[in-house]
């Protein structure tokens, strides 16, 4: 192996972070927010006493968790234009870019994983809390919103954040639909300048530093929460 070319990294680092990392971080944050909201609703549906509702939510979650993320990305990439046409009442599939497709994919996919976490969180709250809510005259949504979910959410914060670190790493798979995330941007430079070793090593180091730092923060948070409890 001839000399490691640091210069190609120095020249492209602005592009990598300005275009690539912005895509990656924005996608992660939107998918996290959407995924937790949708996932919590799914968890409530799974725990519903109405059989049809819990079966439907269970089927969705199990389907998402049984097939590879790459396949899910392809599915939505081709499916979203049809759904868009259906919503907008167009006769032809609508044009949807890689960005919107990725946002929808990761929100829908991660919702299944956040759902399982939130379900465990809700189930960890003693039943007495729910009964006391009803005894106070609160309805289902009030009991959930004011009593159960705040506690469940608080107990599950470390796991939710760990899932988000995984989500952050998994967004790199948008490479398969040629989106320019951090990895995609690096791949473009790597192929243009034929500097694959340098660019992919750099990408690995950056991902490692970010993910590892975040996981240390989560660990700290976990210890703090554990002490209070």
């Amino acid at each position, binding site marked *: *192996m001839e000399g490691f070319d640091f210069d190609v990294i120095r020249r492209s680092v602005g592009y990598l972070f300005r275009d690539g990392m912005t895509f990656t971080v924005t996608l992660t944050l939107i998918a996290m927010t959407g995924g937790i909201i949708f996932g919590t609703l799914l968890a409530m549906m799974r725990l519903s006493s109405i059989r049809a509702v819990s079966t439907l939510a269970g089927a969705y979650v199990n*389907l998402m968790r*049984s*097939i*590879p*993320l*790459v*396949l899910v990305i*392809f*599915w939505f990439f*081709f*499916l979203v234009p*049809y*759904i868009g*046409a*259906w919503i907008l009442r*167009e*006769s032809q*599939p609508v044009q949807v870019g890689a960005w919107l497709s990725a946002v929808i994919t990761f929100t829908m996919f991660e919702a299944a*994983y956040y759902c*399982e*976490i939130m379900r*465990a*969180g809700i189930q960890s709250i003693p039943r007495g809390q729910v009964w006391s809510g009803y005894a106070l005259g609160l309805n289902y949504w009030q009991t959930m919103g004011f009593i159960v979910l705040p506690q469940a959410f608080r107990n*599950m914060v470390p*796991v939710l954040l*760990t*899932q988000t*670190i*995984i*989500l952050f*790493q*998994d967004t*790199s*798979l948008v*490479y*398969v639909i040629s989106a320019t995330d951090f*990895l995609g941007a690096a791949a473009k430079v790597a192929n243009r300048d034929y500097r*694959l*070793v340098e660019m*992919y*090593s750099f*990408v*690995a180091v950056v*991902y*490692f530093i970010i*993910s*590892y730092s975040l*996981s240390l923060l989560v660990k700290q948070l976990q210890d703090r929460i554990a002490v209070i409890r």
Partner: protein
Amino acid sequence: MHYNWHWKVLLETEPGGTGSYLHYLIVGLGWTLATALAAWVIALVVGAFVGTIRTTSAHWAVRLGNLYVEIFRNIPLIVQMFLWFFVVPELLPQAMGDWIKQMPPPWGSYLPAVFCLGIFTSVRVAEQVRAGINSLPRGQRFAGTAMGLTQAQTYRYVILPQAFRIILPPLTSESMNIIKNSSVALTIGLLELTGRARAMQEFSFRVFEAFTAATVIYLLTNLIVVLLMRILENRVRVPGLIAAGGAPQAGH
């Protein structure tokens, strides 16, 4: 919105002329399983070793194990795939690197994919093994020492046989994860099931037939893996030894 389903496409001949599209996908499943199984062997062996040394009393071994786990856990799988495929052959001695790069397809993609998936999953196995060992009562270890066993013997005869039984359920989900994760190998050119569904979509323009077929095949495969592991669990179960588990975990 209207989509004309055309399921008969599965019985049409694929452009390569090797058979029908359905056959083409089934061969893809074969590559998926071949990759996942070979990687699973690496993952179990390395993962059991790393997970075990992280519970020993040797501080340097614990630290080394932790380092290994953190490195391979914090880099995305697809980036690791690229490292094994593009970077590792360049770092090896010239002759060996050239030999790897000149391997005929699909072996040139298959081998890096197997190593990548094996090492990636070994970290997750190591975490399970460590958790399994730590979930055993400390008395088990003391009892081993009191019987005059060395540390190695205590692990071999007391700790590990129990720990492996405890972690069978989480290992089941890891074995399904490794099948799913093998789809990332399509990015380095391995035509496994997802890669072939994608290729079929490009050749035939039948998008949803191709992906539906692949989805159904993945679901059936999962079902079979779950059933097999359940049989294994029942076989090796020790009555009264309740599985740990139950704690929610992040995953993908």
